[in-house]
Protein backbone atom coordinates (compact mmCIF):
# COMPACT_ATOMS: atom_id res chain seq x y z
CA UNK A 1 0.00 0.00 0.00
CA UNK A 2 1.37 3.35 -1.01
CA UNK A 3 0.44 6.17 1.32
CA UNK A 4 -0.73 8.86 1.02
CA UNK A 5 -3.55 8.39 -1.45
CA UNK A 6 -4.13 11.13 -3.97
CA UNK A 7 -7.24 13.09 -2.98
CA UNK A 8 -8.35 13.21 -6.60
CA UNK A 9 -8.41 9.41 -6.97
CA UNK A 10 -11.52 7.31 -6.44
CA UNK A 11 -9.95 5.95 -3.27
CA UNK A 12 -9.48 9.56 -2.14
CA UNK A 13 -13.16 10.33 -2.66
CA UNK A 14 -14.26 7.21 -0.78
CA UNK A 15 -11.92 8.18 2.06
CA UNK A 16 -13.37 11.71 2.04
CA UNK A 17 -16.81 10.15 2.53
CA UNK A 18 -15.59 7.93 5.40
CA UNK A 19 -13.73 10.78 7.14
CA UNK A 20 -16.67 13.16 6.70
CA UNK A 21 -19.13 10.59 8.10
CA UNK A 22 -16.94 10.02 11.16
CA UNK A 23 -16.46 13.77 11.64
CA UNK A 24 -20.22 14.40 11.44
CA UNK A 25 -20.99 11.60 13.92
CA UNK A 26 -18.31 12.84 16.35
CA UNK A 27 -19.54 16.44 16.18
CA UNK A 28 -23.12 15.35 16.86
CA UNK A 29 -22.22 12.93 19.69
CA UNK A 30 -20.04 15.64 21.19
CA UNK A 31 -23.17 17.88 21.32
CA UNK A 32 -21.38 20.66 19.43
CA UNK A 33 -24.15 20.62 16.81
CA UNK A 34 -26.19 22.29 19.58
CA UNK A 35 -26.19 26.10 19.42
CA UNK A 36 -26.56 26.40 23.20
CA UNK A 37 -23.50 24.26 23.94
CA UNK A 38 -21.30 26.42 21.69
CA UNK A 39 -22.41 29.87 22.86
CA UNK A 40 -22.35 28.77 26.51
CA UNK A 41 -18.60 28.19 26.17
CA UNK A 42 -18.18 31.92 25.58
CA UNK A 43 -20.43 32.58 28.61
CA UNK A 44 -18.31 30.26 30.82
CA UNK A 45 -21.31 28.00 31.43
CA UNK A 46 -20.49 24.91 29.42
CA UNK A 47 -16.98 23.55 28.92
CA UNK A 48 -17.86 20.81 26.43
CA UNK A 49 -16.25 22.58 23.46
CA UNK A 50 -13.04 23.30 25.36
CA UNK A 51 -12.78 19.70 26.60
CA UNK A 52 -13.27 18.35 23.07
CA UNK A 53 -10.80 20.76 21.49
CA UNK A 54 -8.04 20.32 24.06
CA UNK A 55 -8.37 16.53 24.00
CA UNK A 56 -8.32 16.54 20.19
CA UNK A 57 -5.21 18.76 20.20
CA UNK A 58 -3.41 16.52 22.72
CA UNK A 59 -4.32 13.16 21.18
CA UNK A 60 -3.93 14.43 17.63
CA UNK A 61 -0.77 16.42 18.31
CA UNK A 62 1.10 13.76 20.25
CA UNK A 63 0.15 11.18 17.61
CA UNK A 64 1.27 13.38 14.74
CA UNK A 65 4.49 14.21 16.61
CA UNK A 66 5.23 10.49 17.05
CA UNK A 67 4.34 9.66 13.43
CA UNK A 68 6.45 12.57 12.22
CA UNK A 69 9.42 11.43 14.34
CA UNK A 70 9.02 7.89 13.00
CA UNK A 71 9.12 9.25 9.46
CA UNK A 72 5.59 8.07 8.59
CA UNK A 73 4.34 11.49 7.53
CA UNK A 74 5.86 13.26 4.52
CA UNK A 75 5.40 16.79 5.84
CA UNK A 76 3.64 19.17 8.21
CA UNK A 77 0.75 21.27 6.90
CA UNK A 78 1.44 24.59 8.51
CA UNK A 79 -0.59 27.66 7.59
CA UNK A 80 1.12 31.01 7.17
CA UNK A 81 1.47 33.21 10.23
CA UNK A 82 0.20 36.57 8.96
CA UNK A 83 -0.24 38.26 12.31
CA UNK A 84 -2.68 41.02 11.32
CA UNK A 85 -4.77 38.67 9.18
CA UNK A 86 -4.89 36.07 11.96
CA UNK A 87 -5.84 38.56 14.66
CA UNK A 88 -8.44 40.43 12.56
CA UNK A 89 -9.72 37.27 10.92
CA UNK A 90 -9.77 35.40 14.23
CA UNK A 91 -11.66 38.26 15.87
CA UNK A 92 -14.24 38.41 13.05
CA UNK A 93 -14.51 34.63 13.35
CA UNK A 94 -15.11 34.83 17.11
CA UNK A 95 -17.84 37.46 16.64
CA UNK A 96 -19.43 35.40 13.86
CA UNK A 97 -19.22 32.21 15.90
CA UNK A 98 -21.22 33.70 18.79
CA UNK A 99 -23.79 35.50 16.59
CA UNK A 100 -24.28 32.49 14.29
CA UNK A 101 -23.73 30.07 17.15
CA UNK A 102 -21.65 27.64 15.14
CA UNK A 103 -18.31 27.40 13.37
CA UNK A 104 -18.18 26.17 9.76
CA UNK A 105 -17.85 22.46 10.66
CA UNK A 106 -20.45 22.39 13.42
CA UNK A 107 -22.82 24.63 11.41
CA UNK A 108 -22.74 22.23 8.49
CA UNK A 109 -23.33 19.30 10.85
CA UNK A 110 -26.10 21.16 12.73
CA UNK A 111 -28.13 21.60 9.54
CA UNK A 112 -28.44 17.83 9.45
CA UNK A 113 -29.87 17.74 12.98
CA UNK A 114 -32.75 20.01 11.99
CA UNK A 115 -31.33 23.44 12.85
CA UNK A 116 -32.98 25.75 10.33
CA UNK A 117 -31.04 28.81 11.50
CA UNK A 118 -27.83 26.84 10.90
CA UNK A 119 -28.98 26.40 7.29
CA UNK A 120 -29.69 30.13 6.93
CA UNK A 121 -26.26 30.86 8.40
CA UNK A 122 -24.70 28.45 5.91
CA UNK A 123 -26.14 30.57 3.09
CA UNK A 124 -24.56 33.53 4.89
CA UNK A 125 -21.25 31.66 4.93
CA UNK A 126 -21.44 31.21 1.16
CA UNK A 127 -21.95 34.97 0.85
CA UNK A 128 -18.94 35.50 3.12
CA UNK A 129 -16.88 33.20 0.91
CA UNK A 130 -17.82 35.13 -2.21
CA UNK A 131 -17.21 38.48 -0.48
CA UNK A 132 -13.75 37.32 0.56
CA UNK A 133 -12.87 36.17 -2.94
CA UNK A 134 -13.97 39.54 -4.33
CA UNK A 135 -11.93 41.52 -1.79
CA UNK A 136 -8.96 39.13 -1.79
CA UNK A 137 -6.56 41.29 -3.81
CA UNK A 138 -7.00 44.21 -1.42
CA UNK A 139 -6.80 42.04 1.71
CA UNK A 140 -3.68 40.33 0.43
CA UNK A 141 -1.90 43.60 -0.25
CA UNK A 142 -3.00 45.50 2.85
CA UNK A 143 -3.69 42.97 5.61
CA UNK A 144 -2.01 39.64 4.92
CA UNK A 145 1.29 41.41 4.31
CA UNK A 146 1.42 42.86 7.84
CA UNK A 147 3.39 40.70 10.25
CA UNK A 148 3.88 37.97 7.66
CA UNK A 149 6.21 35.51 9.38
CA UNK A 150 5.71 32.53 7.11
CA UNK A 151 5.04 28.93 8.08
CA UNK A 152 6.46 28.80 11.58
CA UNK A 153 6.04 26.32 14.41
CA UNK A 154 6.34 27.00 18.13
CA UNK A 155 9.31 24.61 18.71
CA UNK A 156 11.42 26.38 16.06
CA UNK A 157 10.21 29.89 16.92
CA UNK A 158 10.92 29.51 20.65
CA UNK A 159 13.67 26.83 20.66
CA UNK A 160 11.68 24.92 23.29
CA UNK A 161 11.97 21.16 22.68
CA UNK A 162 8.77 19.72 21.26
CA UNK A 163 8.62 16.90 23.84
CA UNK A 164 8.65 19.48 26.63
CA UNK A 165 5.80 21.46 25.02
CA UNK A 166 3.63 18.35 24.88
CA UNK A 167 4.42 17.41 28.47
CA UNK A 168 3.48 20.91 29.66
CA UNK A 169 0.27 20.93 27.57
CA UNK A 170 -0.73 17.45 28.78
CA UNK A 171 -0.09 18.20 32.45
CA UNK A 172 -1.83 21.59 32.12
CA UNK A 173 -4.86 20.01 30.46
CA UNK A 174 -5.01 17.26 33.12
CA UNK A 175 -5.24 19.79 35.95
CA UNK A 176 -7.65 22.01 33.99
CA UNK A 177 -9.96 19.07 33.27
CA UNK A 178 -9.79 17.92 36.90
CA UNK A 179 -10.66 21.44 38.05
CA UNK A 180 -13.57 21.70 35.58
CA UNK A 181 -14.98 18.31 36.60
CA UNK A 182 -14.73 19.18 40.29
CA UNK A 183 -16.34 22.60 39.91
CA UNK A 184 -19.18 21.24 37.75
CA UNK A 185 -19.78 18.45 40.28
CA UNK A 186 -20.38 21.08 42.96
CA UNK A 187 -23.09 22.92 41.00
Amino acid at each position, binding site marked *: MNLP*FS*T*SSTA*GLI*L*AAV*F*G*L*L*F*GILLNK*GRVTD*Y*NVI*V*NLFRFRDWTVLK*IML*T*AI*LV*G*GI*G*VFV*MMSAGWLP*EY*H*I*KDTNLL*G*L*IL*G*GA*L*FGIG*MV*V*YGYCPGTGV*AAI*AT*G*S*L*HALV*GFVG*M*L*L*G*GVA*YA*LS*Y*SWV*KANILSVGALGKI*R*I*PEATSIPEVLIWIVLAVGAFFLFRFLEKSSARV
Partner: protein
Amino acid sequence: MKNPSWSPYLVGAGIGILSWLVFLVVNKPLGMSTEVSKFSGWLAGLFVGMDAVTENAYWAGKTPKFGYSTVFLLATIVGAFLSAKWSGTFRWEKVPQVWSEHRGPGVMGRMMAAFWGGAILLYGARMAGGCTSGHGISGTLQLAVSGWVFFAAMFAAGIGTAAVLFRKSKTQS
Protein backbone atom coordinates in the same frame (compact mmCIF):
# COMPACT_ATOMS: atom_id res chain seq x y z
CA MET B 1 -24.89 5.00 18.72
CA LYS B 2 -28.30 5.32 20.38
CA ASN B 3 -26.84 7.43 23.15
CA PRO B 4 -27.42 11.12 22.25
CA SER B 5 -24.06 12.19 23.64
CA TRP B 6 -20.65 10.73 24.33
CA SER B 7 -18.07 11.96 26.82
CA PRO B 8 -16.37 15.09 25.42
CA TYR B 9 -13.00 13.48 26.15
CA LEU B 10 -13.95 10.45 24.05
CA VAL B 11 -15.16 12.70 21.20
CA GLY B 12 -12.00 14.82 21.43
CA ALA B 13 -9.82 11.72 21.29
CA GLY B 14 -11.87 10.51 18.31
CA ILE B 15 -11.28 13.78 16.45
CA GLY B 16 -7.58 13.59 17.33
CA ILE B 17 -7.33 10.04 15.94
CA LEU B 18 -9.34 11.09 12.88
CA SER B 19 -6.74 13.81 12.27
CA TRP B 20 -3.95 11.15 12.37
CA LEU B 21 -5.77 9.15 9.71
CA VAL B 22 -6.35 12.18 7.49
CA PHE B 23 -2.67 13.18 7.73
CA LEU B 24 -1.47 9.64 7.21
CA VAL B 25 -3.81 8.45 4.50
CA VAL B 26 -4.41 11.50 2.31
CA ASN B 27 -1.62 13.84 3.49
CA LYS B 28 -4.05 16.65 4.33
CA PRO B 29 -5.01 18.45 7.51
CA LEU B 30 -8.56 18.10 8.82
CA GLY B 31 -10.42 21.29 7.90
CA MET B 32 -13.79 22.69 6.95
CA SER B 33 -13.77 26.40 6.01
CA THR B 34 -11.66 25.82 2.88
CA GLU B 35 -14.26 23.25 1.90
CA VAL B 36 -17.12 25.71 2.48
CA SER B 37 -15.25 28.44 0.60
CA LYS B 38 -14.63 26.14 -2.36
CA PHE B 39 -18.28 25.15 -2.26
CA SER B 40 -19.23 28.85 -2.47
CA GLY B 41 -16.92 29.22 -5.46
CA TRP B 42 -18.45 26.15 -7.08
CA LEU B 43 -21.97 27.53 -6.51
CA ALA B 44 -20.93 30.97 -7.81
CA GLY B 45 -19.66 29.15 -10.90
CA LEU B 46 -23.16 27.82 -11.55
CA PHE B 47 -24.43 31.41 -11.76
CA VAL B 48 -21.64 33.37 -13.42
CA GLY B 49 -19.75 30.56 -15.15
CA MET B 50 -16.61 28.81 -13.90
CA ASP B 51 -14.39 30.93 -16.17
CA ALA B 52 -15.44 34.06 -14.31
CA VAL B 53 -14.77 32.34 -10.98
CA THR B 54 -11.29 31.10 -11.86
CA GLU B 55 -10.39 34.58 -13.12
CA ASN B 56 -10.74 35.72 -9.52
CA ALA B 57 -7.35 36.01 -7.81
CA TYR B 58 -8.48 34.01 -4.76
CA TRP B 59 -10.24 31.10 -6.42
CA ALA B 60 -7.63 30.90 -9.18
CA GLY B 61 -5.33 29.22 -6.66
CA LYS B 62 -8.00 26.91 -5.27
CA THR B 63 -9.94 25.81 -8.36
CA PRO B 64 -13.36 25.09 -6.90
CA LYS B 65 -14.60 21.84 -8.35
CA PHE B 66 -16.43 18.76 -7.16
CA GLY B 67 -13.89 16.57 -5.42
CA TYR B 68 -12.47 15.50 -2.04
CA SER B 69 -13.58 18.71 -0.30
CA THR B 70 -17.16 18.56 -1.55
CA VAL B 71 -17.49 14.87 -0.62
CA PHE B 72 -16.05 15.54 2.85
CA LEU B 73 -18.52 18.40 3.43
CA LEU B 74 -21.53 16.39 2.24
CA ALA B 75 -20.46 13.32 4.23
CA THR B 76 -20.18 15.43 7.40
CA ILE B 77 -23.84 16.40 6.90
CA VAL B 78 -24.84 12.75 6.38
CA GLY B 79 -22.82 11.63 9.44
CA ALA B 80 -24.44 14.20 11.73
CA PHE B 81 -27.88 13.33 10.32
CA LEU B 82 -27.44 9.59 10.92
CA SER B 83 -26.09 10.24 14.41
CA ALA B 84 -29.07 12.45 15.30
CA LYS B 85 -31.55 9.96 13.81
CA TRP B 86 -30.03 6.97 15.65
CA SER B 87 -30.29 8.74 18.97
CA GLY B 88 -33.69 10.30 18.20
CA THR B 89 -32.42 13.82 18.80
CA PHE B 90 -33.27 15.15 15.33
CA ARG B 91 -35.67 18.08 15.70
CA TRP B 92 -36.48 21.19 13.70
CA GLU B 93 -35.14 24.26 15.46
CA LYS B 94 -35.79 27.85 14.45
CA VAL B 95 -34.80 29.80 17.55
CA PRO B 96 -32.42 28.16 20.05
CA GLN B 97 -32.91 28.47 23.79
CA VAL B 98 -30.07 30.82 24.79
CA TRP B 99 -30.93 33.18 21.93
CA SER B 100 -34.63 33.17 22.83
CA GLU B 101 -33.92 33.92 26.49
CA HIS B 102 -31.82 36.98 25.69
CA ARG B 103 -32.82 38.26 22.27
CA GLY B 104 -36.45 37.17 22.17
CA PRO B 105 -38.30 34.36 20.40
CA GLY B 106 -38.70 36.18 17.06
CA VAL B 107 -37.84 33.91 14.13
CA MET B 108 -36.92 36.73 11.74
CA GLY B 109 -34.44 38.28 14.16
CA ARG B 110 -32.71 34.95 14.74
CA MET B 111 -32.52 34.14 11.03
CA MET B 112 -31.04 37.56 10.19
CA ALA B 113 -28.44 37.14 12.93
CA ALA B 114 -27.57 33.62 11.74
CA PHE B 115 -27.19 34.84 8.16
CA TRP B 116 -24.92 37.78 8.92
CA GLY B 117 -23.09 35.85 11.64
CA GLY B 118 -22.36 33.13 9.09
CA ALA B 119 -21.13 35.69 6.57
CA ILE B 120 -18.76 37.35 9.09
CA LEU B 121 -17.65 33.91 10.28
CA LEU B 122 -16.53 32.66 6.89
CA TYR B 123 -15.05 36.00 5.87
CA GLY B 124 -12.95 35.94 9.05
CA ALA B 125 -12.01 32.30 8.53
CA ARG B 126 -10.75 33.03 5.03
CA MET B 127 -8.82 36.10 6.14
CA ALA B 128 -7.17 34.05 8.89
CA GLY B 129 -6.70 31.11 6.51
CA GLY B 130 -8.69 28.55 8.51
CA CYS B 131 -11.41 27.87 11.07
CA THR B 132 -11.96 25.93 14.28
CA SER B 133 -10.88 22.72 12.56
CA GLY B 134 -8.16 24.02 10.21
CA HIS B 135 -6.49 26.37 12.72
CA GLY B 136 -8.13 25.52 16.05
CA ILE B 137 -7.46 21.79 15.86
CA SER B 138 -5.21 20.91 12.89
CA GLY B 139 -2.99 23.99 13.28
CA THR B 140 -2.67 23.92 17.05
CA LEU B 141 -1.92 20.19 17.13
CA GLN B 142 1.00 20.72 14.74
CA LEU B 143 2.12 23.50 17.08
CA ALA B 144 1.76 26.05 14.28
CA VAL B 145 2.12 29.60 15.57
CA SER B 146 -0.78 30.60 13.28
CA GLY B 147 -3.14 28.09 14.95
CA TRP B 148 -2.49 29.34 18.49
CA VAL B 149 -2.72 33.04 17.52
CA PHE B 150 -6.07 32.32 15.81
CA PHE B 151 -7.28 30.36 18.85
CA ALA B 152 -6.52 33.29 21.17
CA ALA B 153 -8.07 35.96 18.90
CA MET B 154 -11.20 33.85 18.39
CA PHE B 155 -11.74 33.28 22.11
CA ALA B 156 -11.13 36.91 23.06
CA ALA B 157 -13.59 38.23 20.47
CA GLY B 158 -16.12 35.48 21.20
CA ILE B 159 -16.15 36.18 24.93
CA GLY B 160 -16.59 39.92 24.30
CA THR B 161 -19.40 39.34 21.81
CA ALA B 162 -21.24 36.95 24.13
CA ALA B 163 -20.99 39.46 26.98
CA VAL B 164 -22.71 42.12 24.85
CA LEU B 165 -25.18 39.89 23.00
CA PHE B 166 -26.43 37.96 26.03
CA ARG B 167 -26.20 40.75 28.61
CA LYS B 168 -29.91 41.16 29.18
CA SER B 169 -32.36 38.41 29.95
CA LYS B 170 -35.83 38.63 28.37
CA THR B 171 -37.33 35.90 30.49
CA GLN B 172 -36.31 36.94 33.97
CA SER B 173 -36.36 40.74 33.99
